[in-house]
């Protein structure tokens, strides 16, 4: 008996603003497609059952756990990953997103494995809100409450969310 080969599909995903085509087995997870087919290893896989949030990317503006999405489901979507958070400035240098800047300044990461998921979740959340409004503790709870970190105890992550929101308010 020969086990049948997976059916494959060719999909197009706009990743960090760049249209990317890939031919993937239909069962390929979006997380694996990003990491293995598109070489974007900044998105990490911590549990593969949607609990830890390390694999969070932003799909059409919403934070999504890429280990719970099939790559074929993202066909035609716009996906933002951690690699796309920083912008290039006119001099060819790199300008960190305020959330990235705040994470570094507040020591909001240690091993860094969960960090891309936090960055994407928090960025999507902060960008979806009115930046001029005062950030409440309840909002911070909501923004960081669904991702696991084993290193930091979360205190500095919460601090970074406040710092980032303040920076986005001042920059808005």
């Amino acid at each position, binding site marked *: *008996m*020969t*086990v049948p*080969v*997976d059916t494959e599909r060719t999909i197009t995903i706009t990743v960090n603003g760049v249209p990317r085509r890939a031919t993937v*087995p239909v*069962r*390929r997870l979006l997380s694996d497609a990003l*990491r*293995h087919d598109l*070489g*974007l*290893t*900044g*998105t*990490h896989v*911590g*549990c*593969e*059952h949607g*609990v*830890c949030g*390390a694999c969070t990317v932003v799909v059409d503006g919403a934070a999504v756990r890429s280990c719970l999405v099939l790559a074929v489901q993202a066909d035609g979507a716009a996906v933002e*990953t*951690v*690699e796309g*958070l*920083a912008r290039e400035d006119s001099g060819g240098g*790199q300008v*960190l997103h305020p959330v*990235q800047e705040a*994470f*570094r*300044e507040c*020591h909001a*990461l*240690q*091993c*860094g*494995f*969960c*960090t*891309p998921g936090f*960055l994407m979740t928090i960025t999507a959340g902060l960008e979806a809100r009115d930046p001029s409004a005062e950030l409440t503790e309840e909002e911070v*709870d909501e923004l*960081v*409450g*669904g*991702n*696991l*970190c*084993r*290193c*930091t*105890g*979360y*205190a*500095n*992550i*919460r601090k970074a969310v406040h710092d980032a929101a303040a920076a986005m308010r001042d920059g808005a």
Partner: protein
Amino acid sequence: MTTKLFGEPVRRREDARLITGRGRYLDDIGSDALAAAFVRSPHAHARVVDVDVDAALDVEGLVAVYTYEDLPGPLAEPLPVLIPHPQLHAPRTGYPLANGEVNHVGEPVVMVVATDRYVAEDAAERIVVTYEELPVVVGVDAAREAVHAVHADVPDNVAARHHQETGDADAALAASPHTLSFTQYIERSACMPMEGKGVHARWDAGDRSLRVHTSTQASTSVRAAIAAKLQLSLDQVEVVAPDVGGGFGVKIVHPWPEELLVPMAAIALGREVKWAEDRREHFISSAHERQQRQEITVGYDDDGRVTALDVHVWHDNGAYTPYGIIVPIVTATQLVGPYVIPVYRVIVESVYTNTVIVTPYRGAGRPQGCFAMERTMDRIADALGLDRAVVRERNLIRPEQFPYDHRLTFQDGRPVIYDSGDYPGLLDKLRALVGWESAEELRADAEARGKLLGVGMALYVEGTGPGPYEGGHVQVLGSGKVLVSTGLTSQGQGHETVFAQIVASELGVPIEDVEVTTGDTRRFGYAVGTFASRAAVMSGNAVALAARGVREKALRIAADVLEADPGDLEIDEGVVSVRGTPGAAIPLRTVAVLSNPLRYAFDEAAKQATQFARSASDDKPPVAPGDAPGLEHRDYYSPIRSTFASGAHAAVVEIDPATWEIDVVKYAVVHDCGNVVNPMIVEGQVHGGVAQGVGGALYERMAYDADGQLQNASFMDFLMPYASEVPDVVIDHQETPSPLNPLGIKGAGEAGVIPGTAAIASAIEDATGRRIAAMPISPTQLYDLVRDGSSETTAAWRRRTGVDA
């Protein structure tokens, strides 16, 4: 001024790559590698009767299948007992792939290699393993009863009987004015780093060399193990720890079966092979820790001073003992904490169970020891009607008693002699920080809100920075760049930053010029590893000594060029200058160029060091006897014994008597790790440790059923704290430098987790008046305890509530 950085909250140098997705973790390596997957035992104890791989052979993309029968030479022998000990009388280890018997769910039986992980798992699930089930032993009590044996040739299930005593405990107890005896339990948790283990191997058939990347805490020793097991010369093997997504102890164990099997397959197949552990694999085939049954008898006088302590611990070591009895020894020796214990006897029986192996998890036996000692202090206070802090205070080792010899032998074979500390200072700061004296007001306030409030505290002393040694290498390049390497590994502790701070401070160079490499055997071949809160102490001092060697050489060369006395020179911002003589200066990078006499000039800088450019004495060799070319130095730090850090934690809990939900509303930490290299990083370590302490006290447990099935082997069911479960932590500092090492530092990595279970148990007991003798505790368990009329109540609660005993 950027060069005096020791003690400053320097922002981390690791972060630039980690926040932009440019970190390089194990599974980010080898995009074209073949993938390995494992068939693991579904049974906790069984004979392997047959392995039928036929159905897997048709899977398109399958490359190879390995069973025990395929393991050559030393690979077919049991895995090493890494840390032998005379009291580990019955060590047992597994095989890389099961040899006829499995002893826990998750033990590897077959390795499949295929074109990708999906295909490898397709093939693995088609392999049929026939088992004959055997009786299962789960938990310390079952192991102790020994109705069944995990290993047939160890019928009592006892792997080791660790015993230390400092006097005649029976006589001291008999002579004590009061004694108390009680039994308590602590449950299993696990390190649970966000990144599981993983191994990538590449064999170069041309030069017969093997490069292995592994998510490890001990790359040099993995290298030695691979060389031994795969019968390669050490120089054929290089092992690199890339960015590692957390360790907390589980990655110090080695060689994991996969660390041998993946390289074996890479060599056999002549292809890159990779395995990245998935979460379920991590739960059922990596390591756990913490389960113990503790039987304690304490003698004490009318003032609450301990006169004798007798502790008998049954420690669950799981199915095998690859890491020896380190955890039992640490429990036995660190249990005494900051207290004077005139006579102490401890026996730890380390027993086999049909569960995942037990090896160090952050704290490594200390949380259990702290739980035993601190709950003993609480019991003495309760029995005498004294304040819990007062009883502790009366038993503390006083500052003038250092060095303090406990007359015990530590996990490194060295005496437990505390080098320095100020324990009364810790306790005073803790009382102020948590508001200990106003506990009754807090309780009344909570009561008015319908909540039960309690406070608890726990103190600890932690032996950190054990030997035997670590090394450091510092080299200044002609570009001015300073390369620093050390063999031990990093898992997020910020070593690149801390070691760069130390070298920049010692050498007088901008930190931006310093590049640090850890855990890469190509750069530094001698090392022990990252565990026991030892990295800053061991490698920190080693790189400091290496930097001092470079500085000395730089000053010698510069003195020659500047025609000055080396004692008159200073280095600042990477420039060597004559103190008080403006203009008499030479950049360190030029000194580096001059340190290497050249025949050939390959760039402008090199021209300065060529044979006709340098004026040298005709009657001296270009490289003096005993000297070496290059501005570099290698040095080692090897301490006589561990240095002992200390701390005190307090928790305030509020309990809702409707739901019995336990809310830690305040958590106070006073910690003392000697001189602090980077306070931001130390606080981060404390925060993370406390979160794990709270998890271990209230949420995390490995829920094995009687068949040895781990019922909660996922993040859905194993309750690791989210941000919502971790309390705000307030921190105060004390710095008692270590006299043992040049930098005066003590370890800080594990401290945060150690007293959590003890302090929170104490607080819950204070709130509810019910004796808390088993941790962790859930709301349901607490409800059952309160509802059960036969539960033991505390004397303090009876006095407070007017209930008669």
